[in-house]
Structure formats: structure tokens, C-alpha cells
């Protein structure tokens, strides 16, 4: 779901109280708390659809709880070995956004392959990026994707997704052999 500026402004208005709650409870730094607040905003946006969004009364409560959960997750992740998906997410933050609240230095990561995948993903065509985003990130169903993207049927959308993944896989292979993924 893409949020309008109006909705984002509403969520932004909850930032001071969420950040101060988190800082008081955990003693974390201001920028860490602000980043965790953004993570909570993303979760809220992912959880609720547009109709639900304007009806939720407890957005602030949701954001405070989710911020705190992210902090706990980060705290415990630092304490024990990380799972693969955490490694990827954390590696990505470090690599692409470079403002990670997480400390990735101490973990061993399959950097080369992940760097390749992320590089290829950033060069993928808009249509493929959208299909992959809708299906694997926003968890939309194929009929929904077909409707949003104007495919005739969900089967056509499924074939398009398959072609995109194949293209992505081939580009990762080519890139690893030294050929630019852009071509």
C-alpha cells in the first residue's frame, strides 16, 4: 500500500512520543529510536489496507509496541547467532541504505552473492520489480496483481512473474561470471 502524504504526516506526528517512550524504556540512541520508528511505520502500512488505515484508532499504541518489538529483536539478534534472513536484511541495510540500526560487522555473511543479487535487483526493469514486490514483499495474490498491473488473467501474471524470476536468476549467473547485469 502506498501512503499519501496526509497519512504519512499523521504517522509522523506520533514520532516524538514513540521515540521518547523507546528511549526511556531501552536507553537507546535517538537515531536508533527514529529508525525503529520507521520500521514500525512500514509494519503498520504492510498490515493494514487503505480502508482499514483510516479506521484504526490505536495507531500510536501499535507503533509504540512495534518499535519496542523491533528493539527487542535487534537486542536478542546481537546476543545470538543470526538466521539467514536476518543476515540478508542486515547486510542490505549496511550495503544499500548505509544507516542500519543494526551492527553487522561481527557476523559472517555471504557478501559476494548477496551483493550480486542486490545489484541485479536494483537494475531490474520496473515491471519485474513491481511484480516481485507485490508478490514476495506485499504478499498480494496473483488475481490482485493481475488487476493492479492490467494483466488479462492471473495466469498471465503468474507467467510474467516466472519470466522475471528467470531473468533475475540468469542475470545473477551472468554477473557472477563477470558480465554486467544491466545489459
Amino acid at each position, binding site marked *: 500500500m502506498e501512503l499519501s*502524504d496526509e497519512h*504519512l*504526516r499523521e504517522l*509522523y506526528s506520533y*514520532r516524538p512520543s514513540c521515540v521518547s*517512550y523507546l528511549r526511556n524504556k531501552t536507553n537507546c540512541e535517538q537515531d536508533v529510536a*527514529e*529508525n525503529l520508528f*520507521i*520500521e514500525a*511505520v*512500514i*509494519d*503498520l*502500512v504492510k*498490515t*493494514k489496507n487503505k480502508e482499514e488505515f483510516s479506521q*484504526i*484508532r*490505536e*495507531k*500510536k*499504541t*501499535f507503533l*509504540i*509496541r*512495534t518499535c519496542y*518489538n*523491533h528493539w*527487542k*529483536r535487534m537486542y*536478542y539478534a546481537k546476543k545470538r547467532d543470526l*538466521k*539467514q*534472513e536476518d543476515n*540478508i*536484511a542486515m*547486510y*542490505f*541495510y549496511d550495503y*544499500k*541504505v548505509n*544507516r542500519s540500526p543494526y551492527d553487522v560487522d561481527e557476523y559472517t555473511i*555471504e557478501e559476494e*552473492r*548477496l551483493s550480486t*543479487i*542486490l545489484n541485479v*535487483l*536494483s537494475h531490474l526493469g520496473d515491471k519485474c520489480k513491481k511484480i516481485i514486490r507485490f*508478490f*514476495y*514483499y506485499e504478499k498480494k495474490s496473483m488475481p490482485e496483481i493481475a488487476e493492479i498491473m492490467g494483466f488479462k488473467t492471473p495466469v498471465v501474471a503468474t507467467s510474467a512473474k*516466472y519470466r522475471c*524470476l*528467470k531473468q*533475475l*536468476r540468469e542475470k*545473477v*549467473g551472468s554477473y557472477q561470471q563477470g558480465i554486467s547485469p544491466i545489459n
Partner: protein
Amino acid sequence: MSIIEKQFQLIIKHFDQSLSEPELKEFDSLIENSGEFRNEVKIMEDIIDSSAAFHRAEEFKYIKEKFTEFDLESKRKPKSRILRRYFAMAASVTIILVVSIFYFQNPGFDAQKAFIENYELFPVKSSVRNTQKKLFPGIEYYKQGNFQEAIPLLEQYSKDDIVNCLYLSNAYIETGNFQKAESTLNKFIPKIDDRIIKRYGIWYLGLSLLAQNKIEDAEGQFLLLAEEKGPFHKQSKVLVEALKSR
């Protein structure tokens, strides 16, 4: 990519959870016998996981930029002295009005604040690993704080399992679905025989009601806990007193 097209299709279907029975058998046999196939599954797993991380990071970047924009906007806004004075006066009047209305309607009690101060996630006991193996994936996500992934798995196995109902209702609370938490607990609390677990159920039901500002209903639940000694006795007593004096 060195594997054949059909095998690639199997891998994609595996990640989309759309393998048919014969395809699943073929997939399992390839996983067992072909190192190349296993490697390909690993690569595709990395690609799919990375794509989710990639899109999340893009969203993170977009929201961060927007918030920085809002920060700058609020700093830049020109405010004349007269306007500022006018706004200050208007704000004072509004605050006095709101506070007085709130005080007369609800003096001294903020349900959201009370919820935040009292709510703690229902903990996962180490014995869960052995006794509830079926729930294991759901519980694992729950332990990681990944409630979005935990909910469908917990829902799948929550029909008769009382403790699981507590995990599920807590996962609902954590994702802001207080209504679902309320209905799950309302459904399961009458079936609970164990006194301690029942008190946990009542406590979380009270908190879900509180979060929805259903104050009278919440008070009823806390009263049940305050009347008898046991877990949450003290907290419930404090809450009931606060609710009564509002």
C-alpha cells in the same frame, strides 16, 4: 543457470507453495539426490529473501526522506510574532478546554497509557519445543517478534490448544488487532481448566479491551483477577482502583 527448465519451475513453485503431490515427490527426490539442485534452491532462496529486504529498504529510505522533509518544513515555517502570539493563546485555550472536558469525562485515567504500561508479551517456555512440535514454526516466529509470519501458523493449530490461544491472542495484540485478540480470548477462556492459565487469558482479554477503550468491559475482567489471589492480582487491583476513581 545449469539446471533444466522443469527443475527451475519446481523451485519457483516450491517457494510459492503451489507444488502438487507428484511435483512435491519429485522435488524431495531432487533435493535428496542432486547437489546442483540443492545449490539452485539455495540461490533462489537468497534471491527471494533479498528481494523482500530490498523492497523494505526502499520503503525505509522513502519514509526517512519524507520525515526529513517534514522536519525541515516545520523548522522553515515562517511565523510572525502576532501569529505566534495568536496561536499560543488559541493553543492555551484549546488545551484548557480539552483537559477540562477530558478530566470531567475521564478524570485521571488514560486507557492507552494504562495498556502500554501493563502489557508484557506472554513468554515462550522452553518446554514448548518438545511438547508442541507442530506449532514450532509459529512459535519460532513469535519468539523472534515476527508476529506477521507467526499468526497464520498459530491460527492453523489453535483450534483446541489453550496455550496456543494465548500465543495467538498476543500476536494479535502485537499487530494491533485488538478485536481479534478479544474474540479469540472470549472464545477460549471458558474452555480453560487450569486456574493460572485462565488468569493469563483474563488479563490479556482485559488489556485488549483497554486498548480499544472499552473501559467498563475491561474493568469487569480486572475485577475478576483483583478478587482472588494469583498472577496479576496486584496489577488488577491498581487498575480497578484507577478505573473506579475516574
